[in-house]
């Protein structure tokens, strides 16, 4: 059995080099489909025998993408487009692009005319009115349409049994990640913020079933460890992405552990399982009505804020760290009311703006250090 460190290092290598995973899948004769955030039906890719490949941008300078997007679009989309324009995603058979924020609505055309038809775009629409039956039905219809495109690419028919099996794989993975997140929170001395992030993120590039095995082994090993007293701080994170190596290192340097997260790339994926339904695609659509705590979802009561406060209380966190993706409208709108909710609950909240094109994190370091001092003095 691998040691905890070996497993964590392996998952760090996967999340640090997604291209190697893509190449390995292609060498095995698998087709791969790029999956942009948020909430694309990647289970359908899996059901079609292909590899869903997460597109979460990259830490890099975007240049070519600025021929398509103005500078004031988030770096997640800039760098995802940049990778495509540079040929770094060659080998993908298609990409899935949702339309759930204004910047994403422009992505498909920019990709189509920039990268070209060699990697076609599959548009993914889902209902913002996600809690009503008509919304779930609309999402189901659109996911079925996506399935048709995926069947063409895969060159095979995908049965409901295939989809049900894929949903089961994903639900198992979600269950495993929830257990891992809890175990990692108990062992911050062993699982650093960077380790935790990498372990979760690796799932976007690996075979999900393989990822589940690794995560389950890791969790089992962590749960076997005796609990150690943690003298540092514990925070709950919220935002779109919290995978910046520089920021995660700043947290580690300040002895700040992640007690839980409400990050789109992290627990938004695994907090909610897909209901098992006779039509498995309807269950996938219904899941969208159950997920909370993500700014791209219609959230008239700002359940996100209530969930975040509850999460921080349950985790006995010292504070909340909002990892603010620069130029992300949904996040910037949510910030004001959610911050007020945290204030009302007496939970300190720090927002740190991040951008995958940033090279200097000293401002973030100063802010985190000051925040840590305040939390320690409380």
């Amino acid at each position, binding site marked *: 059995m691998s040691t905890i460190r070996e497993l964590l290092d392996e998952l760090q290598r996967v999340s640090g080099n997604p291209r190697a995973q893509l190449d390995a899948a292609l060498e095995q004769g698998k087709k791969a489909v790029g999956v942009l955030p948020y909430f694309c039906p990647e289970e359908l890719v899996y059901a079609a025998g292909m590899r869903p490949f997460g597109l979460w941008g990259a830490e890099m300078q975007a240049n070519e993408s600025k021929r398509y997007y*103005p500078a004031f679009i988030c770096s997640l989309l800039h760098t995802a487009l940049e990778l495509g324009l540079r040929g770094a995603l060659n080998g993908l058979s298609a990409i899935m692009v949702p339309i759930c924020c204004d910047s994403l609505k422009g992505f498909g055309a920019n990709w189509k005319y920039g990268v070209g038809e060699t990697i076609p775009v599959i548009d993914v629409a889902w209902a913002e009115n996600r809690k009503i039956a008509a919304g779930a039905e609309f999402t189901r219809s659109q996911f079925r349409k996506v399935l048709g495109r995926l069947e063409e690419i895969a060159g095979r028919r995908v049965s409901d049994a295939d989809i049900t099996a894929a949903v089961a794989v994903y639900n198992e993975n979600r269950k495993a990640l929830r257990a891992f997140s809890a175990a990692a929170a108990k062992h911050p001395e062993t699982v650093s913020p960077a380790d935790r992030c990498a372990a979760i993120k690796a799932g976007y590039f690996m075979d999900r079933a393989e990822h589940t095995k690794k995560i389950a082994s890791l969790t089992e090993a962590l749960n076997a460890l005796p609990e150690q007293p943690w003298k540092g701080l514990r925070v709950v994170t919220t935002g779109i992405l919290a995978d910046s190596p520089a920021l995660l290192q700043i947290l580690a340097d300040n002895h700040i552990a992640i007690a839980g997260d409400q990050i789109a790339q992290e627990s938004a994926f695994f907090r909610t399982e897909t209901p098992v339904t006779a039509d498995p695609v309807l269950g996938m659509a219904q899941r969208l009505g159950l997920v909370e705590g993500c700014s791209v979802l219609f959230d008239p009561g700002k359940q996100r804020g209530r969930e975040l406060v509850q999460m921080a209380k349950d985790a006995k966190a010292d504070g909340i760290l909002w990892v603010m993706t620069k130029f992300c409208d949904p996040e910037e709108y949510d*910030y004001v009311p959610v911050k007020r909710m945290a204030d009302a609950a007496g939970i300190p909240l720090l927002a740190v703006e991040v951008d995958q094109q940033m090279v200097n994190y000293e401002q973030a370091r100063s802010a985190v250090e000051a925040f840590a001092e305040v939390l320690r003095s409380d």
Partner: protein
Amino acid sequence: MTESEEKKPAKIVLRELQDRIAQDAWDAKRRGEKVGWCASNFPQEITTAMGIPVVYPENMGAAVGAKGGGQRMCEHAEGMGYSNDLCSYSRINFAYTDLKRCEELEIPFPDFLLCCNNICNCMIKWYENLALALDVPLILIDIPHLDAVTCDADRVKYIRAQFDDCIAQLEAITGKKMDYDRLKEVMDVSQRSSRAWLRAVGYMSAEPSPFSGFDIFNNMAVACVGRGTVEAAEAFEQLADEYEALAKDGKSTFKGEEKYRILFEGIACWSNLKFTYKTLQSRGINLTASIYGPAFSFLYGSLDELMAAYSYVPNSNCFERELQLRVDDAIRNKVDGAIFHMNRSCKHWSGNLYEMERQFREKTGVPTVAFDGDQSDPRCFSEAQYETRIDALVELMEENKRKEGGA
């Protein structure tokens, strides 16, 4: 005095109608009726047919910008914690919600909110925050961005279900019942308004255009808020008649010689409207094509077609349809060039603007320039940059004219 002498010009009628619609909302509020805040491309047929007064925060944002209050209000919202990256209309509205006053323009506070995201998804986040801050119910009609040239049956079914649900919710909130015969009447009147609006803006194809294209920015407010009323339909028909008469006589309300005809892409810079207009007008440039022409025409024959029509508003279409709308408008209206506004407020509109400009230029063969600006935050606009870009466009258009003339 003859009848024609007594008749007010259509632009005055439209301005008075806009003022009256705003006053009606205040009067209704004072009577204790429920008043709503409404997104500009929300299906107005519902509220008009039910006799429910609504006002439009986007129009307020534009008006406050035009009257010089944009920066002050935006800065207040930034003090509340809102990023200056966000839509300036929404920042102005958040500031108003917080301050409860605005010296440039005030609108009655809402008892409910009607949101529709066919124009952009930031509307959803904006209205979520309003609902929380004002503690009022929020009704969303989600109109998903089109992924094809036409709106599919699944979208129509989904929008229709929300349309019906919205009526039920409004009945519960306001106590007013929907009369479906009245809805049919409003749909008919809206068609009449839309056809008249299209006829009016259609005269931009005349040479010279019978009007200054910036007039569209002034007239579209009624096209947005009042097209379901007989008064609006009549005013637009009068406007079209006036333009027809001017076109027939080769006359125009544009001041000076119309040397160049351009397409203006994007929302006006309300805070810099005078400067942007004067810079063009002083160089003999008239705006003869704008997406605002077709933007506020909603043509349909049935309720299901109405659902699809609200999917075809600018920015809700797939890229290819958006491009074709502009290219057709430019060719029909014989433009010599085009100006693309990179609007800092609008990530949706700006996200494909570079590609739109490239393909537009390729398909129409006319020169284009782009400038940076904002719909209501003057801090994003530079007079010097704008002038330089317009001068460059004039040089290119002049060169083309010289070549065409064989000089």
